Each structure stands twice: as C-alpha cells, then as structure tokens.
C-alpha cells in the first residue's frame, strides 16, 4: 500500500482531492457558498494539468445537472457540487437523473433553503424523493473517503443510480482537519476506469430515456435496494486498502453495547454526540449512539435490528418538514421499526436549523429525554425543538417566554 500523506485541509479541499484521485473526466460547476472552494480547487487542478478533466463553468445549476447527466451518458466519469438554492434550482433535472441510469456523483455541503448561507439539511431532504443515493458524512476524512467510494457504488452495474455525498456546510466544508490522503496508485486499484453498460455513442444508437415506464420505476427501486449491499462492499473493500471503515457503510454504532436507549443522528452532529455519549457512559448512563449515514437507500434492516435491542430511540436531525410535525429521519426511523414485536419509544429532536449550532447541551438534553422514555416507558413530548427560546432550561435560566 502506498503512503497516505498527512495533510491539514478542510472538507471542500478533501472533496476536491477525492475527485482528482477518482480521475473524473468531466467536471461541471457553478459557484455557490459554501461549495465554491471545491470548484475553485478543481479548476486549479485542471489548469495545472493535475486533473485531466474537461471543466465546464456552467451558467446555472439547472443547466449543471443537465450537463453532468449527458456527459455521463457518453461514458465519462463526471462530478459536480452544489447545495441549498443551487440544488433546488437544479431540481427539475435532479428529480429525473435516475431515469436514464447514467451514474453521477455529486457533493453537497449542506446549506439551508431560504435566505441563509449556513447549514441545515433542508436542501437534500427536499430531494429525498428523487431517486438519488444520499450519504451523510461526519467529517472531512469521511467525505473524502465516501466520495471515492461513491463512484464505485454509482458505476456498479447492480446500481447505476446517482449519488449525493453530503457534508455540513461551513461546519465540515470550512473546518480544517488532519486528513490522510489516499495514494493515487491505491485509489486506481480500488476504483478502476468506468465500464459503461451503454452510452449515447452514435455508433450504437439506443433509446436512452425510459419515460417513466412503471416497470422501469420498479427496477429503479430494485437498484436502490441492491445498492445497500454494494455500499457495504465498497466500505469493506476500502477499509482493506486504506484502513478506515465507517460502520457497515449504511449506519455506524457507537457505544451501543448494553444500551437501553440510542440516539440517532447524522453528519457533523455525530462528532458532538460522540463526546456527549462517551461522557454519559462514563457517568453510568446506558446510552448509545447510531450514525445514520445512508439516508437513501434507507437501512430499514439496521433499524429493525435496533428495535429488538433498545427501549427508546431518539432522532436528532437538522431538518423539519412544516406541516408534518416532525423531521424526515424521524418518520423513516419510526416506519422502519413499526413492525417490531415490541416497538421502542421514539422522540424527535429538531436542531441546527438555518445554521444554528447543535451544542453539547442540546445533545445531552436529547440523550436524557431518550433515556427517560426508555426508563418510564412514556414519551411526554414527541417532538422537541432544540431552539434556545423554546427549551425549558434556557427559559428558566434567562426568564424569557
């Protein structure tokens, strides 16, 4: 195995490195905060001849997705990055990307939809019905590793579905971390050149649009389900070469042995949550932590298994769907555990919206409430908004509300 150089870079630079290492052939991008440094770095690589890709400085995100889709159609490995309003602007093309089954990998430094540039998951949650594999990463190392794995997953003939690799905008994208950079020769072994199943090459004219034929839509679902095994395989194979493994690729457990309650969370919040759970464990609380990495395909089997092991599951997430009363992950987790012979209690914690921080005390609150539900067998409040103005302890302390 080649030497993995150690460097101090942020999430955006990590993504750019991964794209270079993956030998992407066409990069299409439009700038949007906080993604811009990714495309700036990639254009630097291209300008210096370090990445032999065709770089398209497209004029908007709607066009961006059209261009990556058709470039993938010719048989190339392609990449783009966007987030927030940019992802929303591209929605028309995002929602139909899976129809032609051309593999596409994108990176999304999650940014809230709305008028802020800071992080929450409303952008990618809004695309969760669009037939994309969605993987949420915790830190810069994981986003680097996951982007490389994403190409392998997307291009696998059992999958051929587009992939979104998500990481928290500003929190991960702009925070420097000590990273191990995979050596190019090892990435080449893990990720050989793409073998396209079919292309838009005129020498073999094909019909490449399935036009929403119902049986084709069924096949897309089969592909999504097959992706679970492919993601797990990629995770394991990567670990053999590079020495880093992320749970089973779909979820990752932390201190769940003998837990009576488990908190589920995603993305960078995991970093904070690990600290809290480790401390609470040392204080004797039987609390565990589960990282939900693959939101699509949803790891139903992992949650069915969890349901048989614990008495309460808390879900802490950075999104909320107005009118549904709760967040998206909460619904999915509950639904996955519905058929368990004994259903655990479930509680939703909405935090980190619009770029607000998910603080140590917020995670602690979530863990305590989940443990309470496990012990009492009752949930006094199903959905807690971790917004300072609304939290009882804060209100008491500040005398507000």
């Amino acid at each position: 195995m080649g030497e993995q150089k150690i460097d101090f870079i942020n999430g955006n630079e990590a993504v750019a490195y991964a794209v270079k290492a993956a030998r992407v052939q066409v990069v299409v991008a439009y700038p949007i905060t906080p993604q811009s440094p990714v495309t700036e770095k990639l254009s630097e690589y291209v300008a210096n001849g370090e990445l032999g890709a065709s770089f398209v400085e497209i004029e908007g995100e709607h066009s961006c997705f059209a261009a990556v889709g058709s470039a993938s159609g010719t048989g190339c490995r392609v990449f783009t990055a966007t987030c927030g309003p940019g992802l929303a602007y591209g929605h028309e093309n995002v929602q139909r990307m899976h129809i032609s089954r051309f593999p596409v990998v994108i990176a999304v430094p999650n940014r809230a939809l709305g008028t802020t540039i800071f992080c929450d998951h409303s952008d990618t949650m809004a695309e969760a019905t669009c037939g994309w594999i969605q993987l949420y990463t915790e830190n810069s190392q994981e986003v680097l590793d996951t982007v490389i794995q994403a190409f392998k997953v997307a291009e696998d003939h059992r999958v051929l579905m587009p992939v979104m690799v998500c990481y928290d905008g500003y929190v991960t994208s702009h925070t420097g971390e000590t990273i191990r950079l995979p050596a190019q020769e090892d990435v080449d072994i893990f990720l050989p050149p793409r073998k396209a199943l079919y292309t838009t090459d005129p020498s073999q004219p094909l019909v490449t649009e399935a036009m929403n034929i119902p049986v084709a839509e069924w096949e897309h679902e089969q592909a999504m389900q097959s992706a679970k095994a492919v993601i797990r395989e990629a995770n394991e194979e990567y670990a053999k070469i590079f020495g880093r493994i992320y749970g089973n690729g779909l979820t990752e457990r932390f201190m769940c042995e003998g837990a009576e309650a488990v908190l589920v969370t995603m993305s960078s919040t995991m970093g904070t949550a690990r600290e809290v759970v480790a401390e609470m464990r040392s204080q004797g609380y039987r609390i565990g932590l589960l990282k939900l990495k693959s939101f699509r395909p949803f790891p139903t089997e992992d949650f069915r298994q969890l349901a048989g092991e614990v008495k309460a599951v808390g879900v802490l997430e950075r999104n909320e769907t107005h009118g549904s009363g709760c967040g998206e992950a909460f619904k999915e987790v509950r639904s996955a555990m519905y058929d368990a012979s004994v259903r655990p209690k479930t509680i939703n914690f909405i935090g980190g919206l619009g770029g607000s921080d998910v603080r140590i005390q917020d995670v602690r609150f979530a863990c305590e409430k989940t443990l309470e539900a496990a012990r009492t067998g009752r949930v006094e409040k199903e959905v807690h908004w971790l917004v300072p103005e609304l939290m009882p302890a804060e209100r008491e302390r500040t005398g507000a509300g």
Partner: protein
Amino acid sequence: MSKEKKTPEGVGVPVTERQVAATKKRISAWAWRVFRPVFDLGECKMCWACYDYCPEGVISKSDNGPVVDLDTCKGCGVCATECRFKAIKMEREEV
C-alpha cells in the same frame, strides 16, 4: 434477442429494423389519409423538387421518376403544389 436482459427496462433499446418496420405498420397512413399524390411520369422532368420538399421524405428517386411510400405519405399536398410541371395531382382516397 437473447433471453437474458442485459440492460435496465426501457433503456438501451437498439433501433433495429424490426422496430422501424413495426412503427411503420402501427401508424400506417392508409388508415386516415384523405388525399393521395398521383404521379404523371410523362410530365415529370425529374427536377426532384418533390423529393426535396416532401416533409416526411417519403418520396424516393427511381430511374423512371418519383416513387412514393404510401404507407407513410400523409397526403399533405406540398409535392403537388411545388411541382412546376403539374406532374403531381392530389386525388381523394376512396372511403
């Protein structure tokens, strides 16, 4: 075609001769055309304006003059209008 499906449903379908033939048969213009072009090869000077201007391109060239594919001719009448030598007339189809 092999029994084993190599590509996802609805995608990767070759444009084969069979598909073309099936397309022509399915929407044969004989079913609905109102007027049909009739060629007077004696008047025809083989200028091929009809060949150029036929929107569908169903007129092909032979040594004797134009030949029209009546399976696909829509009977629009452009060829008859454009023929300078009055070698094409539009006749009503029999019901």
